């Protein structure tokens, strides 16, 4: 009698409704915040276009990046400008090489440098930081003292030193960039590890007899991931900047390979002859990449580290 009214039926349905409310994990939350960030999403789109361009672009190139167009070489200013007929879509450089192919090659180099340099820094810095922070005590202070000393030398000068001492090559460039990039990462990770390692869940894991290595790997590392990703995303443009700076000075990658910094240097050297495209194409690619990466890094920070800024 009591349970027959419609209202009561609804109520009963509500009470017996056991479909679980879908909870959102930290990562889903972060993804939603990131997707809602217009500047960051636009930047991802533009950066994806640039990456796509470096992959597909070579199939449309009429000239390779080493080939010299002898017809144009004598009169770069008059005949070397960007045109579709000659196949030099971005014009030619001072030696008559096709700038389109060279810009693609340089953009690939710069992006790779950023990614691999940041990845090296990320892996080394995280391992070092977790180890120092988790072991603690005297080991920690010795390890961090070492980092402090290395941080005291201006990073770019260290890279120049390493490249001069060990010779200029792709491999050495990545090593050198990674060698200076991991320092700050190690500091950040260590700080985070220190705050994590005294928390209850770590204590619980230890009480349950989990080995030290597993604690670091399974319990501390996942909790660091947000901070590490944010810092790594800010590290990528920094790596590209540093590499370009060194290449600009002529101490980076050697010919026939090139990077955006080198192309900008060449374009800046010849701009007084009226061949402005040699500066403008690499420059616009460069500035676009850096700005989009800044926005993506900021977006990631806002998404993963939600403090009102």
């Amino acid at each position, binding site marked *: 009698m009591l349970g027959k009214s419609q209202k009561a039926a609804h109520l009963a349905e509500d009470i017996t409704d056991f479909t679980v409310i879908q909870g959102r994990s930290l990562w889903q939350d972060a993804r939603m915040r990131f997707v809602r960030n217009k500047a960051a999403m636009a930047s991802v789109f533009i950066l994806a276009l640039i990456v796509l361009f470096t992959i597909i672009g070579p199939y449309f190139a009429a000239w390779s990046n080493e080939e010299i167009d002898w017809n144009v070489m004598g009169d770069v200013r008059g005949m070397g400008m960007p045109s579709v007929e000659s196949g030099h879509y971005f014009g030619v450089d001072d030696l008559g090489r096709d700038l389109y192919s060279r810009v693609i090659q340089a953009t690939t180099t710069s992006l790779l440098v950023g990614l691999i340099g940041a990845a090296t820094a990320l892996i080394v810095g995280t391992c070092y930081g977790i180890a120092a922070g988790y072991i603690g005590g005297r080991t920690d202070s010795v390890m961090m003292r070492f980092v402090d000393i290395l941080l005291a030398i*201006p*990073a770019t*000068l260290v890279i120049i030193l390493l490249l*001069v001492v060990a010779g200029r090559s792709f491999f050495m460039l990545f090593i050198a960039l990674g060698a200076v990039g991991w320092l700050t990462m190690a500091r950040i990770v260590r700080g985070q590890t220190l705050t994590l390692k005294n928390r209850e869940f770590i204590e619980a894991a230890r009480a349950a007899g989990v080995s030290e290595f597993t604690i670091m790997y399974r319990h501390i590392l996942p909790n660091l991931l947000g901070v590490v990703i944010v810092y790594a995303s800010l590290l990528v443009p920094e790596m590209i900047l540093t590499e*370009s700076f060194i290449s*600009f*000075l002529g101490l980076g990658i050697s010919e026939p390979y090139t990077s955006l910094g080198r192309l900008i240097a060449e374009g800046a050297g010849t701009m007084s002859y009226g061949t402005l495209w040699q500066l403008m194409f690499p420059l616009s690619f*460069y*500035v676009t990449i850096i700005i989009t990466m*800044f926005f993506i890094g900021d977006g990631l920070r806002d998404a993963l580290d939600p403090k009102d800024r």
Partner: protein
Amino acid sequence: MLAYSLRRLLAAIPTILLLIIACFFLMHFAPGGPFTSERPLPPQVLANIEARYGLDQPLWKQLWDYLYNIVVHFDFGPSFKFKDRDVNDIIAQGFPISLTYGSLSFLFATAVGVSLGIAAAIRHNTWIDYFAVGLGIAAQALPNFIMGPILILTFTLWLGWLPGGGWNGGQWQYLVMPVIALATSYMGSIARITRSSMLEVLNSNFIRTARAKGLPTRTVIWRHALKPTLLPVVSYLGPVFVYVLTGSVFVDIYFSTGGLGQAYVGSALSRDYAVLLGVTILYGVLTVLVNLLTDLAYAWFDPKIRY
């Protein structure tokens, strides 16, 4: 405060010593010295040259002599490339120039960056704010080696207002472009840091209290909000100093200002390890000292820090 400063200063000494030793060994195990050329020198000549520079001594003796000369005489030894100059001469010639435009751009970037950041935060979400934020981001994406060509293109090639390079005793026309090129990118960073820090401070309780007391906005901002706002800026000044140091390498090359950067890259290309080592050590020591100074300034600025 004094005890704290002394303690920090003492802690900096082993750092500097280790820095010198590390650089020394790095240089020493480098393949190819300054005297290896395409046409190999006769062994007797090479032996004579090495004796002249002390390279025939055992390694520990070389290191000891090097350290001793730096610490006691402040002498970085002779250059390997220029027979009539030693490293001290090269530093003495280049460093004042780098110091002049470096400190000018340091001041310029800090002053403009902080004012932009404060203006943006006070006028939050108005066109001033948007303008300052846009300018800050654009400036950050324009590091010195991008700004250099852009400035020369505009002011030398198109407008013809400023000379494209040289030093000429540091006349202002020769200073404008190096200073701006060097300052732009971290001016952007400083502006963004100041803005977000000011916004955070303006939302804090003690500012609300100051407002509730009825203090005029001007007093609230200059008397109460400014000092805590500048804390993150002060801690950023150490990295800024490093930017200026490395940036000066570019400026010296691109604007031919004749500062220390030219000597640095020149010695890197010609493998003149003595100069390379000397300049790196000088920059490293300066960085350690500046970091020390910023730490002290931070301690002075932040009432929460106890030593």
